[in-house]
């Protein structure tokens, strides 16, 4: 019984933790503009992240070291440094977007400008990292993120014509009035939102923080293989609500308030309350993860002590990196640059950086020196290779599409 509870909790945490500001913005924008014609991208992205999260978790459990830690010794210092610089930059933008997202959620609840919330939200994120236990932190924000199930309920309550929805999902077309380049640009952004790099760094290091062993592998496989697809359904619900309500009225999504609008109309104040809790939890949780990830990858490259599993004085450089990242992220948001634009850019750059994140995982998961007999099987390698190709294509297309479509205009 206890085991059942633990497994269920793990799955629920994975579902709730799946969505972040990038998913909220990307899925809402795409639904309002393309209806269900890009739903397939979410499916592909979910499979991709399942494949690689399973590998990363296995690497961490078997070798007791996170993937990024092993990149340097396996692929060389120069490759690892290039990877570090690119990943750190993308991570930083994502962190800024998430920190802004928390403030935007509070703005929707209070009508106090999000800029005024930034100092408090950044401080709160840092405090939680400083003092709250790793597992507790993950659990609370993961479970609270389940509030976003209001999107699924809202979608159902909006009374979609299921037949035409399924048809649209399974027969994607480029809608008339939209160019192919724009369609592909949003496909790349949506893909970047589903397969965010920081997720892998965090997941992999988190596995070591929680001291996974090979005994934990099955449980954690369940969390990933059940939790992430269900999280993907949440993403699709967001897309569905805007497709049903905003698309017919020609409304394009530019802010977080519009993301909530269809569900508010369907479910009223209760729905809004659930959404606001969900927005807060999703963005706060993601801010924790990206801030920690920036500490993880820099420390792991240089071989510094890292992690919440030791006292802060024993990992001072790790904590200094986290602190500086949060401060700089807050400062970027305080320049009052449009946080939705920052989110959109972070998604494109995530897509650009994906090969750097995923190629090392595939290599290391196949390395018998680290994997002690638990290297990738044929299925994992087949899927991993297919996705590596997909990821390379998306990465190569990201910047050209962004230039041609002027970032999706």
């Amino acid at each position, binding site marked *: 019984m206890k085991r059942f509870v633990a497994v269920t909790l793990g799955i629920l945490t994975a579902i709730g933790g799946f969505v972040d500001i990038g998913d909220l913005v990307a899925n809402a924008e795409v639904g309002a503009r393309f209806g269900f014609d890009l739903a397939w991208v979410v499916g592909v992205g979910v499979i991709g992240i399942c494949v690689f999260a399973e590998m990363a978790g296995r690497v961490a459990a078997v070798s007791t070291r996170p993937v990024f*830690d092993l990149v340097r*010794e396996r692929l060389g*210092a120069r490759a690892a440094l290039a990877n570090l610089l690119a990943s750190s930059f993308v991570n930083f933008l994502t962190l800024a977007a998430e920190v802004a997202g928390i403030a935007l959620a509070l703005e929707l609840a209070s009508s106090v400008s999000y800029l005024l919330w930034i100092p408090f939200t950044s401080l709160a994120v840092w405090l939680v990292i400083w003092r709250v236990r790793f597992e507790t932190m993950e659990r609370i924000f993961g479970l609270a993120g389940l509030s976003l199930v209001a999107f699924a309920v809202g979608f159902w309550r909006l009374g979609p014509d299921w037949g035409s929805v399924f048809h649209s999902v399974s027969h994607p077309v480029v809608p008339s009035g939209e160019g192919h380049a724009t369609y592909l640009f949003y496909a790349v952004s949506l893909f970047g939102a589903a397969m965010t790099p920081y997720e892998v760094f965090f997941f992999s290091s988190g596995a070591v923080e929680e001291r996974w062993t090979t005994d934990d592998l099955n449980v954690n496989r369940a969390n990933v293989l059940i939790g992430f697809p269900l999280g993907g359904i949440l993403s699709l619900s967001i897309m569905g609500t805007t497709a049903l309500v905003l698309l017919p009225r020609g409304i394009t999504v530019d802010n977080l308030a519009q993301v909530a609008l269809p569900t508010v109309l369907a479910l009223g104040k209760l729905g809004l309350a659930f959404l606001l809790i969900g927005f807060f939890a999703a963005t706060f949780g993601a801010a924790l993860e990206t801030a920690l990830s920036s500490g993880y990858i820099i420390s792991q490259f240089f071989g510094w002590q890292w992690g919440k599993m030791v*006292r802060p*004085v024993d990992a001072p450089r790790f904590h200094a990196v986290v602190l500086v990242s949060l401060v700089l992220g807050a400062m970027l948001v305080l320049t009052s640059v449009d946080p939705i634009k920052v989110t959109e850019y972070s998604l494109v750059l995530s897509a650009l950086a994906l090969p750097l994140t995923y190629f090392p995982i595939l290599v290391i998961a196949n390395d018998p*020196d680290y994997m002690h007999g638990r290297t990738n099987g044929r299925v994992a390698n087949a899927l991993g290779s297919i996705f590596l190709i997909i990821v390379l294509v998306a990465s190569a297309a990201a910047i050209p599409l962004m230039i041609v479509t002027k970032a999706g205009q």
Partner: protein
Amino acid sequence: MSEHVGRAGRAGRLRRLDAGLSLLDRQILDRDGRLSGKVDDLELTPPEGDGSGPPVVTAILSGPGALARRLRGSVGAWLESVHSRLHPSAEPGPARIPFGVVKEIAATVGLSVRKDDLELSRFEDWTRDHIIGRIPGARHAPE
């Protein structure tokens, strides 16, 4: 770089390893198993005696300064300039771990001493003393 290692361990047994493959970029762990940096570079000295034969690895060099020197090109130069600007002491040389304290070489490089005993962590100490150590709760054990 595949030079052969002259000596490893207190027992003084000679082990011939391909230093480039086995040593560089490995994680260093101190006596207590704490993460103590990576093998960023190796100090090689010409062999004694008649000068024939491969150079001997006499020390491990660790730290961004050492890494920057090894990575030739603009990336290394950039890293070196950042490192020298951030480094607290006047003369930022790489941290040097004499090879005598290397206890084992496996997936990680194990030392026979504690990391505080070596001049390994000037940056870490500075960060601890001036920033992190000053924040309340820094010494709180992780629950």
